[in-house]
């Protein structure tokens, strides 16, 4: 199998993501410049964190129109696995590959800290084998997930909420919500189950030296899911 990381101007987690895939998980990983299409043989496509286009207009709003994104859309339609992390999640919602939108954090501060998340779904290609509660860092100013009540109901009815911010014991409480996200949402998946967007950074939690290896479990889940196909 092969992974691809799309490099947008202003991305800053692209190399960390490559490291986690290649050095930690042993998956050949191609870096794809945003002006180029993602190769058709890429099984796992990553949209990394950072500040594409300086977050101008709205986070992800301009990256959505980058040439690489058309190939990401086509790959998603073909059922390839697509993972958007942080800014990658913001790009996926702006591109309408995932519903909702990410607003400025309710507290207005840029948040850079470890959070706990409840793994709501352990039957997606990305989350098999994940513990019920995982720890990963967040680093964002605009991670406040918003969707209207009808949209939230659809997410709940279709089982699209994959991660919710929680406390260490797995309780999804208002106090455990760092940024004001609707329903403590930290990550959602599309209805087809192959496009995941999340604000926390699995690549920054992929080795014990980083404080957590829960992120590695997520990458390994995707790799195993692809090996089964």
């Amino acid at each position, binding site marked *: 199998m092969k992974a691809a990381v799309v490099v947008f101007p202003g991305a800053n987690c692209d190399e960390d993501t490559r490291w986690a895939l290649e050095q930690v998980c042993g998956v050949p990983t191609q870096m794809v410049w945003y002006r180029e299409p993602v190769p058709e043989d890429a099984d796992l496509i990553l949209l990394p964190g950072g500040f594409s286009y300086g977050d101008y207009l709205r986070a992800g709003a301009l990256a959505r129109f980058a040439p690489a994104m058309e190939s990401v859309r086509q790959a998603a339609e073909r059922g390839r696995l697509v993972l958007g992390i942080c800014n990658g999640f913001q790009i996926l919602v702006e591109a309408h590959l995932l519903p909702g939108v990410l607003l400025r954090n*309710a507290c207005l501060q840029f948040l850079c800290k470890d959070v706990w998340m409840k793994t709501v779904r352990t039957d997606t290609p990305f989350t098999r084998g994940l513990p019920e509660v995982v720890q990963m860092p967040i680093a964002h100013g605009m991670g406040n997930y918003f969707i209207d009540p009808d949209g939230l109901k659809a997410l709940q009815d279709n089982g699209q909420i994959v991660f919710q911010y929680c406390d260490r014991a797995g309780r999804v409480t208002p106090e455990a919500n760092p940024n004001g996200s609707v329903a403590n949402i930290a990550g959602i998946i599309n209805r087809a189950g192959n496009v995941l967007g999340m604000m926390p950074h699995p690549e920054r939690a992929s080795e014990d030296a980083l404080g957590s290896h829960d992120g590695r479990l997520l990458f390994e889940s995707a790799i195993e899911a692809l090996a089964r196909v």
Partner: protein
Amino acid sequence: MKGKVIVRLKPEVSDPQGMTIQQTVAKLGFGGVKKVRAGKCFEIELDAPDRRSAEKLLNGLCDRILANPIIEDYTFEIEE
């Protein structure tokens, strides 16, 4: 022609930026400021033959990129 586009958060979307500005100006002694909502303004120079085509251009621009319809509304004015 010139277009002036205002993009605002929809009323039901919370605006922490506006709330913080309101709290700060209240601390500065501007007691009469009850509520602030922050938005965006775009001044756009247009190459359009008439007003109608300028409106069409601006609507297309706002719908496709300047505003996110999930959270934002827009209005615009055209100066000839």
